[in-house]
């Protein structure tokens, strides 16, 4: 058992953090030149041939940086539906994608092409009109598509489970990136701001909610990395746990990110409530993650069904036998 990142994965994170600090608004081409758009695409299709754990490192760092662009929609969501030739175009930075799964389509303002889930598979949607809607989180715009025709058939419906798992796991690690930055800002503030003649971090009414925020974040991050690892196993045995791991991770991480941001806003006092402070943008991304794909309570209902109902469910948790009659 080894639950640490490899030195290569660590340096990918360092590279990502440094690059995004220097270039807060990178273009799709920039990301392709860094090799990020092809991170989990096979080498023969022009990618780096790495796995979902490396991809997750990037989702986490992009979340932390509040990146605006089609990376999530293309890489986390659409990739499993794309045939090899189209993957190669993603790796080279030629095209980006989004997937119309429900009525609200993420990254519709920046994604080049649109895939749509039809009755028996996933198709490219051609000639559709796009309307970008105003969203609370301005860094993750959504829109609706009207009209258009199904074009090339991209994949059959069997890829939907992989899309679901990747989407939930990516959102979970992204939420961890958002929460980590909010927590760091709050710790910094509590360590420098003085009131009543003392640094406010000495007051347990301030420090204990921060300890709790850290706790929620670390628990969520453990689940998110577990989910990322399970997704990376693909069809291997350990990949069987991906559906439940991804559901648990997204439910936990989205809630944790919202809670950590709320604690951070409270610890900052008035300045945390202002438009100019980055916290409001982190908070809005956390709220977006909570609302997208499936809410935490919806995901917990799936976990509960799998734990409690006799009928086997999609995300199977094997209940090991236990004795109910071991009284004292």
């Amino acid at each position, binding site marked *: 058992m080894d639950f640490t990142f490899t030195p290569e994965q660590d340096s990918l994170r360092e590279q990502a953090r440094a690059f995004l600090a220097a270039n807060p608004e990178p273009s799709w081409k920039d990301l392709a030149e860094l090799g990020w758009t092809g991170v989990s695409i096979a080498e023969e299709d022009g990618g780096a041939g790495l796995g979902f754990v490396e991809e997750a490192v990037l989702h986490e760092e992009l979340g932390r940086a509040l990146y605006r662009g089609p990376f999530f929609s293309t890489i986390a969501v659409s990739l499993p539906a794309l045939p090899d030739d189209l993957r190669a175009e993603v790796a080279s930075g030629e095209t980006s994608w989004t997937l119309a799964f429900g009525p609200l389509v993420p990254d519709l303002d920046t994604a080049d092409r649109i895939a749509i889930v039809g009755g028996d598979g996933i198709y490219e949607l051609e000639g559709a009109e796009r309307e970008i809607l105003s969203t609370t989180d301005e860094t993750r715009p959504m829109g609706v598509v009207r009209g258009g025709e199904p074009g090339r058939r991209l994949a059959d419906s069997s890829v939907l489970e992989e899309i679901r798992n990747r989407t939930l796991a990516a959102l979970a690690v992204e939420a961890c990136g958002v929460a980590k930055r909010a927590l760091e800002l709050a710790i910094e503030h509590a360590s420098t701001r003085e009131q009543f003649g003392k640094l406010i971090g000495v007051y347990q009414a301030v420090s204990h909610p921060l300890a709790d925020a850290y706790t929620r974040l670390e628990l969520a991050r453990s689940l998110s*990395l577990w989910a990322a690892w399970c997704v990376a196993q693909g069809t291997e045995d350990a990949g069987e746990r991906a559906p439940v791991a991804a559901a648990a991770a997204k439910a936990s991480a989205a809630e944790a990110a919202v809670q950590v941001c709320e604690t951070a806003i409270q610890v900052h006092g008035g300045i945390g409530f202002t438009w100019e402070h980055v916290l409001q943008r982190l908070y809005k991304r956390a709220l977006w993650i909570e609302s997208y794909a499936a809410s935490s309570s919806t995901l917990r209902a799936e976990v509960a069904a799998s734990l409690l109902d006799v009928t086997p469910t999609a995300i199977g948790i094997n209940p090991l036998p236990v004795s109910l009659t071991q009284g004292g």
Partner: protein
Amino acid sequence: MDLRDTADEAAFRGELRSWIEENLPEELQGHRGGAARFEGEKMRTWSRALHQAGYAGLTWPKKYGGSGASYTHQAIFLEEMARAEAPPHVGVIGLGMAGPTIMAHGTEKQKARYLEPILSAEEIWCQGFSEPGAGSDLAGVRTSARQENGHFVVDGQKVWSSFAHLASFCILLTRSDPASTRHAGLTYLIVDMKAPGVEVRPLTQITGEAEFNEIFFDGAKVPTENLLGEIGRGWQVAMTTLLHERGTLGFALQAALEVQVRKLAALARDRGADSLQRDRIAREWIEAQALRFTNYRALSKLVKTGMPGPEGSISKLVWSEANQRVTKLALELLGPDAALAEENAPYGGYWQHQQLRSRGNTIEAGTSEVLRNIVAERVLGLPKSR
């Protein structure tokens, strides 16, 4: 990153699992007999069996009779024992606290005298740290140790001492310099529990059982050779003990929580749960998984770098609060039957007992308030509150 057992780990886990299955007497499984189960000869036999199979003092060096196993094997051992609902070796305080402290600070003579009987369950140990006036604030210790003609004379009172009524020896934190305050002037002693002037009184707790004791010292004589470490440097020795108390404990706690959540799910299947209760059950299952993988992250860091990761410091805090929620939720599922007790209650009163016992979880081995201070100051680096 590979979350599967390595071949070596899988082999160890497999052997251990079948060993427990073959050797654990049914009457010791689970919580039968409550706290009193530690007193019988069966527990000594079970503990000796663990020792003979090499599972006692797993991480102790071979030269002290241990198995010299890795932290990972220790973690697997604790997981599997909790999963099988097997009771621990009766020498938990000796194995986890007194033994490692003697190894770190003891003389060769002390090591030769005390370590082996801990492993073989011949001698049980207890801990004398907390006092009525020194709980979370351990540096407030007042039990005195006065030097006199080649021995210490000990007077005072200790409290919350598990196993004191069964113990041969006590690791005792005393104040040897009456003029000293706080962390200075403390001395760490090994005390023979059968010596004159040492009296143990059981402390009946909220569940009606007596897991803990008070120990009264009234002019008890302790030979100078029973000094552990140096006179006046007892605080440093005590820190070694507490470090071990909080070491790999997280794995045992998480696995126990996993069993508890599984029982909760079985209870819900048996008696039904509404949709709000189902949401809370799912939440607790997720929490138990989160705790498991958080422990794994901390352990991996410990194995790779020799330093435990900061993630590990939240383990006991998270477990204690989760166990309180899980047991209370179980009572909610029992409905009006929750008011019944013992043999009149469903499942022999298991949940009623567990729920009451869980209130101690956020107090024992570091209160949640102290643990939050530790996270805030040592992990997050916030300014110190005191």
